[in-house]
């Protein structure tokens, strides 16, 4: 093929075309910067938050916990409010107490003069109807409510909850994170489907289905009928769904969102960008030695083997390597700062002791087992791989089985009793919550039970104050000796707060703070 000559032929047309493209692009920027002002987006009186995914449901009875509670907490008040620093504060209930001695009957007095956004007044009957609806609605938080036997109105402003067995955490279950205490109005209850497009609560804001875009943007308007207008700090609130960690950082950095859930991978960049990075311990990553009867893996039936595993993990090294400053070694089923934590207890790193325990149990040469894990919370299974690798030091050849399609699926695998050991994080702010979580479901698929532990806890749940703390600590010691659960390290819940937002607090007792609070001193504020 002949090559064409290229001797200095110029074409003003081409230059023109290229310039046209450039001008279009620059024009877009120019015209919008004149009309759009700063890239901050929200006006000072409105709050924009980020959440990582869509709500599980906008119906509070079917919704989720943790940070995702924000979708319902904005529009619905709970009976009791858990503040960012972990204090129980009056909300729809102005006072509460146990009736009798054994923590089985819990009574709350309701606030007067409160109205639902449907116009009807808050009464004891309305509260009972909402709580009973929650119990049968089939949401994922039903287990959080504790062993509820019955709920009744014992006066126009008094509600009584009776439990089948002692529940020392009744007040905690009535907060905005556990479903049962989040109160829905009578019209919403009559037509629960309507709650997906319009809220019916007593909260500071009202969900606006018309201006929201499913899976993308959820908007809430100010509720003109809220009982304490001085605590309403924003003209409206928007929750934006942003999943990608890098996109979350960019949105927070440029002021598109004033509050966001962070990630260890972007925390340093967030700090450099002058975002306020808050953190509180949340997940307690645990190697669950579920098959303690040795049904699928005989060696795990021997307590010495389980203890050897607990001694074989260099928690400090693992925490430092895997989470840097946002992780800490964990040696107990409870984290430091929670009720029942036992200072100076727990397993240290002692390889020699681990090896001798293995030899004593007759497994000096180790054994093989399969460990179930998932890759949704443990991204790329880096945590699980490190934990399993460390078991090699005492001759245990552990193979990972990774479930990557969802926590529900992972839970199904765990309950199939095919896996003697499982890696998953627990979370709980006292022994009652931690025990309820780890003694059930995917944490205890083989149904392990220990008489001594059960009797200590039964006594603890029926008592209070220092007595309860002492009994909780005994339970911690018993969990330690049983070594069904081998805690490895705790990771922090990271929150990014923009420079214009103040009064955001977080703590080990509440790692997932909410923007709204019943009093002005606890609510988030805009500078």
């Amino acid at each position: 093929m002949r090559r064409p000559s290229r001797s200095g032929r110029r074409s003003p047309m081409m230059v023109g075309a290229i310039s046209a493209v450039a001008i279009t692009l620059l024009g877009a920027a120019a015209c919008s910067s004149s009309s759009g002002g700063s890239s901050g987006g929200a006006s000072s009186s409105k709050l924009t938050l980020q959440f990582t995914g869509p709500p599980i449901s906008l119906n509070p009875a079917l919704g989720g916990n943790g940070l995702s509670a924000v979708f319902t907490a904005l529009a619905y008040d709970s009976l009791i409010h858990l503040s960012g620093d972990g204090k129980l504060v009056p909300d729809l209930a102005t006072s509460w107490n146990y009736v009798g001695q054994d923590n089985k009957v819990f009574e709350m007095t309701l606030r007067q003069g409160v109205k639902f956004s449907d116009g009807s007044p808050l009464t004891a009957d309305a509260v009972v109807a909402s709580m009973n609806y929650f119990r049968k609605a089939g949401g994922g938080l039903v287990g959080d409510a504790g062993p509820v036997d019955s709920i009744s109105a014992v006066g126009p402003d008094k509600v009584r909850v009776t439990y089948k067995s002692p529940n020392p955490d009744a007040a905690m279950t009535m907060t905005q994170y556990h479903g049962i205490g989040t109160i829905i109005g009578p019209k919403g209850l009559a037509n629960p489907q309507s709650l997906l497009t319009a809220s019916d609560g007593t909260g500071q804001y009202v969900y606006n289905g018309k201006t929201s875009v499913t899976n993308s943007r959820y908007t809430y308007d100010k509720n003109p009928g809220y009982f304490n207008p001085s605590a309403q700090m924003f003209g409206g609130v928007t929750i934006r769904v942003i999943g990608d960690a890098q996109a979350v950082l960019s949105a927070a950095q440029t002021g598109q969102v004033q509050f966001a859930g962070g990630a260890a991978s972007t925390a340093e960049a967030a700090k450099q960008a002058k975002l306020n990075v808050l953190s509180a311990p949340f997940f307690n990553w645990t190697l669950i030695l579920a098959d303690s009867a040795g049904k699928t893996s005989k060696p795990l039936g021997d307590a010495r083997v389980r203890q050897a595993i607990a001694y074989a993990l260099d928690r400090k090294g693992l925490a430092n390597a895997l989470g840097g400053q946002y992780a800490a070694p964990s040696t107990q089923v409870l984290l430091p700062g929670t009720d029942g934590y036992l200072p100076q207890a727990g397993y240290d790193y002692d390889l020699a002791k681990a090896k001798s325990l293995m030899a004593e149990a007759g497994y000096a040469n180790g054994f093989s087992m399969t460990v179930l894990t998932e890759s949704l919370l443990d991204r790329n299974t880096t945590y699980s791989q490190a934990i399993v690798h460390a078991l090699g030091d005492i001759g245990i050849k552990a193979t990972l089985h990774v479930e990557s399609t969802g926590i529900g699926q992972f839970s199904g695998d765990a309950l199939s009793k095919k896996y003697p050991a499982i890696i998953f994080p627990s979370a709980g702010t006292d022994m009652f919550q931690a025990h309820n979580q780890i003694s059930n479901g995917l944490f205890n698929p083989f149904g392990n039970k220990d008489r001594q532990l059960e009797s200590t806890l039964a006594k603890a749940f029926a008592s209070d104050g220092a007595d309860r703390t002492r009994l909780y600590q005994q339970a911690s010691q018993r969990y330690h000796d049983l070594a069904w659960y081998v805690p490895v390290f705790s990771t922090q819940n990271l929150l990014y707060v923009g420079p214009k937002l103040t009064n955001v607090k977080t703590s080990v007792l509440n790692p997932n703070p909410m923007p709204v609070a019943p009093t002005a001193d606890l609510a988030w504020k805009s500078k």
Partner: protein
Amino acid sequence: MLKLLAHRVALSIPLVLLVSVVVFALESLVPGDPARTILGENATPEGIAALHQQMGLDQPWLERYWHWLSGLFHGDLGASLFTGDAVTSELNARLGVTVSLVLCCVLVSAVAGTALGMFSAIRGGPAARVVDVLSLTGLALPNFWVAIVLVALFAVKIRLFPATGYVPLAESPGHWLRSLVLPVIALSLFGVTAVAKQARDATLEVQDTDYIRVLRGNGVAESRIVLKHMLRNAAIPVVTVLGVVAVSMLSGTVFVEGVFVLPGLGSLATQATTDHDLPVILGIGVYFTVVVIILNLLVDLAYGMLNPKVRAS
């Protein structure tokens, strides 16, 4: 031409059916279960069974497929298993985002690609080499990296464009355009380079033909030769490439919508797949298929306009 249109439309019906069967079959191979996803880690076997029955997941898949298909003929794509919203309304709300994105990308690829390609062919010399190298670099750079760099530079460092989000055209045309600039650059990089290469080769070819030489010999203005004669003939292979590029951009939206947090069909596809929200996945399959058919139709029509021989046949 009408015959061509009728032929295309007739062909699209079995295509939609085929795609839906493939999507249905592939989805059933993916491990996991929507009932488990909805109920989460506290799911009980009874709860899962009850939800299965409620959602009709206990029926054999042929029956479920038939149920879905009969709805399709009435324009009903069912309801999302998670939100309960009608799939058509959920997808229509997001269609504008994806269509805006793809159309802008096609436009940018066509204009910028052709301009660069023709510039390189006509101008020649070192300037052309620079354009060639830039084109190749564009082809080599992964668009996710480009996207992140663009955000870091033009949204975070210089606050020129928003880092994330989308503004509908009807709400504010200025903001709409602004929200699309970075995603469009990231997504059309491949298109621009593919088109530029095609336009360059085609122009070189046309430049060398006898009729261009005759036109030049007769003293026709260079600008007229380039715009009227060379561009038109070089445009035919460009249009072919543009069709392929537009289709590949549809899959690119899945990623770009994630990074720039645009509420389009692509980001919904990701969400629906992890959730096992089958009605939504099937709906997206149908929408994407229809968009691909329309794109191909447009390419055919463009051929007809550019090349009289196609029209005659």
